[in-house]
C-alpha cells in the first residue's frame, strides 16, 4: 500500500539535481575556502601549504583591526538604529487607531526592495560635498556649515556609510517585529486593559518581553550584516579615504582579486565566518533561551 513511496528511481531523479548543484556551488567552495586558508595561493596553481602563516600575518595586519573596528561600528549602529526605530514603528502601525498606518508602513518598507547600488548612488549624490542634498539643506537653512561626508578621516565616513545601510533596511526589521507582534494572542492584553495600563506601559511590560524570539533573530541579522558589510564600501568609498572605511569582506575581495593573494583572502573569509558563528552562538546562548509557545 505504502510501497509507491519507496521508489529509488523517482527519489534520485527528484533529489540529485538539487544536491549536486548545492554541493558544487556551496559545499565544495566552502571546504575549499577552509583548506586554502592554510596555503599561499595565487588562484591559478595549487599553491603551497604554509600552515597558520596567513592567520599570524592577519593578526599582525593593522588593516585587519581597522576592518574589524568598522565591522563593529557598522553592527552597533545598525542594531541601535534599526531595532530602536523598528520597534517604535512596528508597535505604532500595529495599532489600528494610528492615522495613516498603511501609508506609513509602506513608506518605511519601500527602501528595502531597492537594489543596494541604487541606494548607494542615491546617497552618494546626496552626500556630494558641492551639490548634494545635505549641504543644500544647510544652505537653505542659512547655515554656513558644510561637511564632506565621505571623505573625512576618522569615524565620520564609516558612520556616513553605515547610515545608508541603516536607512535602507530599517523597514525590514520593522516588518519582522510587526510580524512577531501580530502573532501575540489578544488575551495577553486583556488584564492590562482592565487595569487601565497605557499603550506605552502595555508594550513595555507585555509586547516587548514576548518578542524576545523575534529580537534574537533581528539581532543576529543586524550584527551579521554589520560584520559582513561590503557593497556599501565597494560602491561609495572603495574603502577610503585611505583605509578608513575598510570592512573584512572588502579586505578579503581586495586581497584575492586585486592583490592575487587568494590564500590570504581565504584566511580572512574563515576569520569572518568564525566571528559570525561566535556572535550567533553568543546571542542564542543569552537571549530567549526558552522557546515561547502560546
Amino acid at each position, binding site marked *: *500500500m505504502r510501497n*509507491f513511496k*519507496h521508489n529509488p528511481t*523517482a*527519489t534520485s531523479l*527528484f*533529489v540529485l*539535481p*538539487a*544536491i549536486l*548543484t*548545492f554541493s*558544487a*556551488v*556551496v559545499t*565544495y*567552495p*566552502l571546504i*575549499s*575556502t577552509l583548506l586554502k586558508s592554510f596555503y599561499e595561493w595565487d588562484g591559478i596553481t595549487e599553491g603551497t601549504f604554509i600552515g597558520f602563516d596567513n592567520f599570524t600575518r592577519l593578526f599582525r595586519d593593522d588593516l585587519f583591526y581597522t576592518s574589524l573596528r568598522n565591522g563593529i561600528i557598522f553592527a552597533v549602529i545598525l542594531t541601535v538604529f534599526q531595532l530602536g526605530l523598528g520597534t517604535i514603528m512596528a508597535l505604532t502601525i500595529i495599532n489600528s487607531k*494610528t492615522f*495613516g498606518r498603511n501609508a506609513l508602513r*509602506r*513608506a*518605511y*518598507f*519601500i*527602501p528595502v*526592495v*531597492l*537594489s*543596494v547600488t*541604487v541606494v548607494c*548612488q*542615491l*546617497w*552618494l*549624490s*546626496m552626500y556630494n560635498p558641492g551639490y548634494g*542634498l545635505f549641504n*543644500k539643506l544647510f544652505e537653505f537653512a542659512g547655515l554656513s556649515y558644510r561637511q564632506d561626508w565621505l571623505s573625512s578621516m576618522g569615524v565620520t565616513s564609516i558612520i556616513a556609510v553605515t547610515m545608508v545601510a541603516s*536607512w535602507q533596511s530599517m*523597514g525590514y526589521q520593522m*516588518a519582522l517585529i510587526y*510580524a512577531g507582534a501580530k502573532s501575540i494572542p489578544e488575551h495577553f492584553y486583556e488584564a492590562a486593559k482592565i487595569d487601565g495600563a497605557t499603550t506605552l506601559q502595555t508594550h513595555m511590560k507585555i509586547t516587548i518581553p514576548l518578542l524576545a524570539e523575534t529580537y*534574537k*533573530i533581528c539581532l*543576529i541579522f543586524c550584527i*551579521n550584516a554589520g560584520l559582513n558589510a*561590503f*557593497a556599501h564600501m565597494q*560602491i561609495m568609498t572603495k574603502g577610503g579615504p585611505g583605509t578608513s572605511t575598510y570592512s573584512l*569582506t572588502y579586505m*578579503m*575581495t581586495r586581497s584575492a582579486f586585486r592583490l592575487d593573494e*587568494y590564500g590570504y583572502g581565504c584566511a580572512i*573569509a*574563515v576569520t*569572518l565566518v568564525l566571528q*559570525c558563528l561566535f556572535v550567533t552562538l553568543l546571542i542564542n546562548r543569552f537571549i530567549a533561551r526558552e522557546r515561547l509557545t502560546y
Partner: protein
Amino acid sequence: MNILSKAGGVLFRTFLWVYFLISLYPLTYLLFFSLKNNDEIFYTNPLGFPLHLRIENYVQAITKHDIALYFKNSLIVSIVSILFVLALSLMFSYAAARLEWRLKGATYAYVLLGLFIPTQVILIPLAVLMRDVGIANSYSALIVPYVAFNLSFSSLIFYGFFRTIPLEIEESAYMDGASIYRIFLRIMLPLVKPAVATVTIFAFLSVWNEFPLALILITDNAHKTLPIGLLSFSGQFSTEWGPMGAAMVISSIPMILLYLVMGDQVEKALTVGSAVKG
C-alpha cells in the same frame, strides 16, 4: 498630566511623519533629479519639482547607454534562476517530505545548512571554479550560484507546505493508478501554489538586487546585470546627473511596482524565512 501626554502624542505623531519623509524624500529627490539638467540640480532648483520635465534624460539613458542591455540581462538571469529554483527545490522537498528513502533527514539538513553560510565566505573559490570550468562571464556564471543559494530557503518553505498535505490524497490517487510523477505534477504541485508565490517573490528580489557575486563573477559589459551595470554608468556620467538618475529609476521600477501591487506578500516573503535563521 493630560496636557503633557497630549503634547507628547502630537510630538510622537510628528516624528512618525517626519520619518515618513526621511524614508520617501530621497526617492522623490531621485525621481526629480532624473528629470532635471545639471544646472537645475546644482544651482537653480536642487530640492523641488523639476521646472521642465526632461524626458530626454530617459531617452539618453536607454539609447546612448547600455541600460537596456543591463535590464535585459537582469531579466534573463532572474527568470531562468527562478524557474530552476522552483523546479529543483519543488522536486527535492517533495522527495524529502513525502517519499521514503535512506538518509532523508540528513540530506534535508544538509541543504538547509545553506541558510547559515554567508555568500562572501565561498566567493573566492567560487570565482576560481567558474573561471576553471570556463563559464565566467556568461549568464550561467550567475544563474548556477543564484539557484544554489536560493535552494535552502525555498526547500524549507516547500517542505513545510508538503508536510501539511494529508497522506490520503496521494494514496487515493495511487489506488486510481497514477504514477508517482503524475501525482507530483497533477496533484501535489497545484496544492503548493501559495508557497510558489512566496518563493518566487523572495528569489526575484534576491536575484534582481544581488551585488557581490555579480561584481566578482561578471567583468565583461555584455553580461552585466543592473546592480553592476549601474556602477559603470555612474563612471561615464559622473558629470551628468540627470541620465544617471533616469537609469537608477528605470532599474528600480520592477521592484517598486511589485511592492506597490503585492505589498503584503512581499513583506511576508521576506520575513517568513527569518524564523529559522536563529
